[in-house]
């Protein structure tokens, strides 16, 4: 493995993933609707998977990819859980006045 050049690319992709995570975080905080937040969390989870995979290569120990795998699983579980628990609610409790007000703007 030729060290530095590859290390730099790993670094760049880590950086990019971190930036995307930050943008996702902003979306999760701003909302406005519950679905935006859910989407942001979902995206955040996927980016975590990527970050951990790349980190494994950056630090030279790529044998911890199991963690990335469990993140993917947990992420899926979380999304389903939200959809399932708030399925029946037409105006879900999570999707309340503040959100509709924000949408009107």
């Amino acid at each position: 493995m030729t060290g530095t050049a590859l290390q730099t690319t790993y670094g760049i992709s880590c950086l990019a993933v971190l930036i995307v995570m930050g943008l996702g975080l902003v979306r999760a905080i701003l909302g406005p609707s519950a679905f935006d937040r859910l989407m942001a969390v979902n995206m955040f989870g996927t980016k975590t998977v990527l970050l951990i995979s790349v980190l494994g290569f950056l630090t030279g120990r790529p044998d911890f990819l199991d963690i990335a795998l469990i993140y993917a699983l947990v992420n899926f579980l979380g999304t389903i859980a939200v959809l399932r628990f708030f399925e029946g609610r037409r105006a879900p409790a999570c999707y309340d006045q503040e959100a509709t007000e924000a949408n009107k703007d």
Partner: protein
Amino acid sequence: MTIPDFITAFCLILGALLGLTGGVGVYRLPDFFTRLHACSVTDSACAFLILSGLMFQTGFSLATIKLFFILVFLLITSPTSTHALAKAALNSGEIPWCQSQKER
């Protein structure tokens, strides 16, 4: 740099670029469905490129198999969640942007 290294670097950089595009989209686009679209770019293309880029570095080992599984898992689950999310949003009365523009 050997050829696999080159491919890796290419995939990673391209993946990073796509990720950034998607991220900006998630932040900037006007309504939920457009943002979901941007999000799905980062979930599928970016993840695919980065993970397959990494796969060129492992030779053929347990790590390759794990990466492959993560890739397959992500490629199955994230479109599914995106689909389910869009459907749930539509069901609960979220109006796509273009339509709400027309109504105005």
